[in-house]
Structure formats: structure tokens, C-alpha cells
């Protein structure tokens, strides 16, 4: 399935193909409403994503749909279903830009996918690859300029000189 992270757009019709609520097959439909939702906070002491936008659409996906591809009319994946709001239909999909990068770095690990490797069945040796990940151990949030001005006080923010 081709990954098309840049095909995600507000108003795009999508389908979420998976195993919603444990069904053998489910196909839910939705319209992408946002590309810039804050990463959902699921728990105060469990795993929460951060430093990424999420896509949002009212697909009503619940448990069982996690990990499902969110596909467009051309059958391309534009997101990865990740979570939802329990009291509502809003669902959150991980954008695929960094997924695409991780897969690209993983490819050379597999003997049959790597273009330079011998694709014969005898070549079954998997190589170890590195996927560099850096962190400032700092959480950023995307804030509108109105709010940014309040962080730094409006007049100062407007007057702060920025070299070009």
C-alpha cells in the first residue's frame, strides 16, 4: 500500500479499513476535519504522543481499529488510525511523514527488499539498521500567533528583531 502523507487535506474523503470492535472486517468512512490537532492525551501516567500533529475525523472508530490504514479514493494511506474520543465520534490518525522515513531506513535490513541485495531465497540474512532519533526532552505545542503574542506580550513580539 503506497504511503501518501502529503495527500492528507482538510475535506478529503477517507475510509478506515480494519477490525473495528473486533469485527473480522470493517470499513468506516469519514471526512478529514483537521490536519493540525494536538497529540491526544490519553492518560496522565501512560503513553502519550507529543511533538506531532494528528489528523482528526469523525469516523467513530473504536477499539480494534488501532493501526488501521486511513486510505483515500486512490487506495493510498494518508494516515494511521491511532485513537479516539470515547464520548464522541472524533478519531485521531497519526500523520505518515515520519513513518515513511522509518520504513525507508528499515528497508536495507531486509534482504529481498534492498535493491542491491541478492533476492534469491538463500539470502535470508537480515541486517541490523539504525533509525536515529534525537530529542531535546522538550515538548512543543503549536500555538496560534494570537496566543504567541500573549506569551511574549504583543508589542515586544512585534518589535523583536529577527535577522534575515
Amino acid at each position: 500500500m503506497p504511503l501518501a502523507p502529503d495527500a492528507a487535506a482538510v475535506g478529503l474523503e477517507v475510509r478506515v479499513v480494519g477490525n473495528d470492535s473486533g469485527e473480522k472486517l470493517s470499513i468506516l468512512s469519514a471526512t478529514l476535519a483537521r490536519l493540525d490537532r494536538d497529540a491526544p492525551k490519553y492518560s496522565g501516567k501512560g503513553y502519550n504522543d507529543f511533538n506531532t500533529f494528528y489528523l482528526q475525523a469523525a469516523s467513530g472508530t473504536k477499539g480494534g481499529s488501532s493501526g488501521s490504514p486511513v486510505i483515500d479514493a486512490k487506495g493510498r494511506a494518508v494516515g494511521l488510525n491511532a485513537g479516539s474520543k470515547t464520548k464522541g465520534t472524533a478519531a485521531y490518525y497519526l500523520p505518515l511523514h515520519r513513518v515513511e522515513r522509518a520504513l525507508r531506513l528499515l528497508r536495507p535490513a531486509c534482504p529481498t527488499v534492498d535493491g542491491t541485495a541478492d533476492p534469491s531465497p538463500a539470502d535470508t540474512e537480515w541486517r541490523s539498521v539504525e533509525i536515529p532519533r534525537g530529542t531535546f526532552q522538550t515538548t512543543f505545542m503549536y500555538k496560534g500567533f494570537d496566543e504567541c503574542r500573549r506569551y511574549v506580550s504583543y508589542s515586544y513580539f512585534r518589535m523583536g528583531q529577527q535577522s534575515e
Partner: protein
Amino acid sequence: MDTEAALREAQGSDDGTGALVVEDTTPGGPGEGSLEVGDVLVTIGGAFVTDFVTLEGTLDDNVAIPLDVVVERGGETVNLVIAPGNLHEVTPARLLEVCGGVVHALSYQQARNFQLPVGSVYVAEPGYVLGLAGVAKHAIITVSFFLFSYRQLE
């Protein structure tokens, strides 16, 4: 050019509605002491960073390499130098089973939730002895105390 105009221009005329703002830094992490809550991120390595994909790309491509970071703080431009840490190093890959419980190094994920330095001892499952002692799941034990007590057991 003022900062807001520069950040708007960097995002193109259609998409420029905001900027990345520091929400929290984890104690002991690369950002602590340099970045402060409320800092508006302007550039990293001389390039405007106004979205998460660019931010994460820059961090992933420059592990342990000092980067020039420019933020706007309280109306003033602040120049910083920060080297991204290795995310894999603050993500534990092994655990210790102790007296029916499970402990491991505090991951960045949980360090971020609890605002404590990575590497402290994290109680994933209290088990028998820690449970009897009233140590709850998710408890974080300081390293020196834990090592001392564990050696007493041996």
C-alpha cells in the same frame, strides 16, 4: 523583519497561523536550563522551524551535534546552543524482576509525565515485597536509595 512576519512568511501565505511554543522540558534533559516554558521557537541551525515534521527531522538528523537554537522569550531574541540527545538511550530496553515485581529505568515517556529525570528506578509492577512496603505501581524510586536497599537484600 519582525519575528511574527518572518514566521508567517516561512510557512507560506496560506498556512502561517502560529508557531511552536515550549510546553515543558524534562529535568536533566538537553533542553533543561536552555529552553523555558513559553519560549517561541524561531530557528534551529539557521532554518525556521514552525512545524513538527521539520522539528523532528532536524532533531533526528543531528543526534549529539550542537545546534544553534533561536527563540523569542519575553520579547527578546535569545540565542541558545543545544545538542539533541539520543532518544534510544532514554528508552529502556531491559527490566529487572525483583521479589515478584518489575522495575526498570525511568523512560523519557514517563519522565515527561512525572517531570523527573530519566534513569531513576520506575516501578512497573510492585510485586510482593514492594507491594507490602506500600510502593504503588508507577512509583519512582531514587537510584541511590534503590541500589542501597537492593544490596542489603543480596
